[in-house]
């Protein structure tokens, strides 16, 4: 029990890194790249195998991006698709025994959330200029305080929602295995199934919210 949440760290060039998170991230990246490579190895007009999976993801996200972000959303498609595939793989990775999700580390989720929020502000300024700054003072000037709180809350909620759900899922798997004897596997299996569902849902939620935030900033 005591090992939950304790992270092995290494110091490298004066910086501290969580080893497990980094390794699991690389594993997740590797899996995503392998799956993508398998999918595009022999692209055919009539899709087979992994090509179906990638096409479903791409077509679905293209539709969502088109709805949420309009014409300018096209340039964010590779980013959004990568985000979804990476989060899905990361979330599911933690459900395999002896593995951990990269997303059970706040560093990962907050990093991605900050990346998204930085992109929101950068592209907002790039596409809309002063109008983007002006919209923080809507409907009238004092609202800037509330708007700022909202803007700060965005990355925090985005990061903690994903982090909390994935970490809780993994913790409860371990707790259930300790609490319930091995001949009574039903609660663990049920929770595992639920965790698979949660993993997919939160990958979708993170991606959708990122799209919505970016959409607000770049939509005409």
């Amino acid at each position, binding site marked *: 029990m005591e090992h939950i949440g304790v992270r092995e760290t290494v110091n490298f060039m004066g910086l501290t890194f969580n080893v497990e998170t980094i390794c699991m991230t690389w594993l997740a990246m590797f899996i995503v790249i392998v799956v993508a490579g398998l999918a595009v190895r022999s692209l055919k007009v009539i899709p087979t195998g992994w090509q179906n999976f990638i096409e479903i993801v791409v077509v679905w996200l293209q539709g969502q991006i088109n709805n949420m972000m309009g014409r300018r959303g096209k340039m964010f498609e590779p980013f959004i698709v990568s985000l979804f595939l990476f989060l899905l793989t990361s979330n599911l990775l933690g459900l395999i025994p002896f593995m951990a999700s990269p997303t059970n580390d*706040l560093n990962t989720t907050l990093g991605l959330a900050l990346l998204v929020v930085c992109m929101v502000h950068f592209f907002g300024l790039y596409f809309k200029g002063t109008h983007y700054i002006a919209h923080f003072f809507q409907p009238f000037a004092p609202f800037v305080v509330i708007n700022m709180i909202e803007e700060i809350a965005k990355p925090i909620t985005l990061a903690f929602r994903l982090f909390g759900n994935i970490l809780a899922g993994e913790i409860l798997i371990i707790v259930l295995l300790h609490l319930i004897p091995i001949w009574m596997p039903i609660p663990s299996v049920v929770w595992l199934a639920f965790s698979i569902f949660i993993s997919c849902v939160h990958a979708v939620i993170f991606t959708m919210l990122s799209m919505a935030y970016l959409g607000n900033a770049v939509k005409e």
Partner: protein
Amino acid sequence: MIEINATMIAQVLNFLILAAILRALAYKPVARLLQQRSDSIKNSIEKAEADKKAAEKTLEQYKLQLAEAHKKAQDIVDKAEITARQEREALVAETKREIDKMKQTAQEEIQNERNRAFEQMKSEIVTLSLAAAEKIVAKNLGTKENDKLVSDFIANLDKDMLEDVK
């Protein structure tokens, strides 16, 4: 348990690298394929629409032609019927005429035959009568009386016999 450190930077970089790799490796070809597919589907649908329109037009033309052909055929049949009727009537009239002619000819022939037979009979009767009369009056009558008798007989014969025959 919750500790923000340099891992965050590493994770962002990791993700950006992944995004770059995926963009080059998977996204671009897949997006291109999807675009191609949607283009080809669009083209197919457009082509199908155009084909359908052309087919409908052709069908319309064919129907028109068929109707025309029907009309023409009907005309031809009608004309042929009229011609046939006329021919038949002409033929019937011709036949009737021929029959009439033949009848007339036959009647004439019969008349001729009868006249001829009558003439023949008349002369034979005369001869027979003469022979009979000769036998009866051979001894009694002289030549003068005989001639007168014959003339009377023939005159009577003409009157009675011809009445009977006619």
